[in-house]
């Protein structure tokens, strides 16, 4: 959980890149957006949620998953973002889209604003016990919930985890990136929105 981060976030995200199939949507936000863009060219079905309304990536993913139920939708969220919209876990489990995979990259801090601890991290709490996102997801009724704090474990289990009955919740304990800055928008937002929607509609399954 928050406070004993283990994985390099880029390495953790690279596992998703390995398992992402043609036609899958990948939504990234905040730190995951920065790391995802650094890994190479964007796919037409990548949605870099920058600028965003912080915390709304899972909700955006839910809408896509409901509109196109035969397409797999990945949403990459930070722990600070998750805390900002925890109710989304309840909303999503109520809709129970089988095609949605939510991955929370838990580094315990608001990384892009200078690594201040979140209220959910061990460092942000008097008892030094971080909030357990996987337990929250279970309590919200997600059918498939996973937690990994070692890159090798995540890499070995990713295929099975992602293919579990959805919606799937995966919490990854990752290390903050020292001195990290916020992601830069990869282009004009309106144009990107239009192209992303076109890609979704043209390849609707």
């Amino acid at each position: 959980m928050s406070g004993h981060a283990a994985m390099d976030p880029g390495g953790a995200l690279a596992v998703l890149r390995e398992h992402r199939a043609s036609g899958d949507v990948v939504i990234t936000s905040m730190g995951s957006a920065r790391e995802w863009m650094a890994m190479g060219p964007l796919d037409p079905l990548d949605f870099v949620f920058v600028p965003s309304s912080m915390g709304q990536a899972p909700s955006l993913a839910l809408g896509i998953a409901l509109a196109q139920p035969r397409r797999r939708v990945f949403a990459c969220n930070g722990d600070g973002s998750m805390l900002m919209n925890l109710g989304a876990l309840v909303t999503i489990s109520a809709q129970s889209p089988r095609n949605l995979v939510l991955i929370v990259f838990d580094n315990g801090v608001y990384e892009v604003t200078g690594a201040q601890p979140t209220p959910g991290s061990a460092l942000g709490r008097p008892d030094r016990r971080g909030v357990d996102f996987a337990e929250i997801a279970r309590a919200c009724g997600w059918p498939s919930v996973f937690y990994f704090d070692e890159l090798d474990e995540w890499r070995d289990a990713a295929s099975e985890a992602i293919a579990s009955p959805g919606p799937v919740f995966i919490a990854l304990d990752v290390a903050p990136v020292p001195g990290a800055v916020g992601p830069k928008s990869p282009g004009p937002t309106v144009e990107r929105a239009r192209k992303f929607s076109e890609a979704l509609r043209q390849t609707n399954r």
Partner: protein
Amino acid sequence: MFSGEQVAALFADLGVTHVVTVPDSTIGKWGDAIARASDMHLVRVCREGEAWAVAAGLHFGGARPLVLIQCTGLFESGDSLRNVLHDWKLPIFSVIGYRSFLNQETLPGDTCLVFSEPVLDAWKIEYKLIRSESQIGTIREHYRACLAAGKPGAVLIAEGNA
């Protein structure tokens, strides 16, 4: 003002595929009829900010969503609404309950009357005020006009109770 059946029929006629909502005591009564409608889905969210993001995802995927919330939820929606309607310029239409407009018996001095319309103006959302059942055609016309223009829009539904 309107029955659930009237609203469900209107939304269906407009081609709405998903109604993303947080209820209040007026618009909440429409939910069952909307949920019963074929070819239309009711998506209950936990807070109004979520509603805009869910609607955005639905729109991206080719659906035609509508956001159904109270004006208090409009106030709560701020950053998400800004992101969806102005950063991404998505033409999401909303139906917003206007608390205490018809009377203030439950909440005398309700500040919803002070802020609802200025907030819509501030967010640059063109809206129509629906004061009576006879204006159901106004909703239809405004929705279609916004759809044709590819821009967001809203209607404020006058309510009497909190």
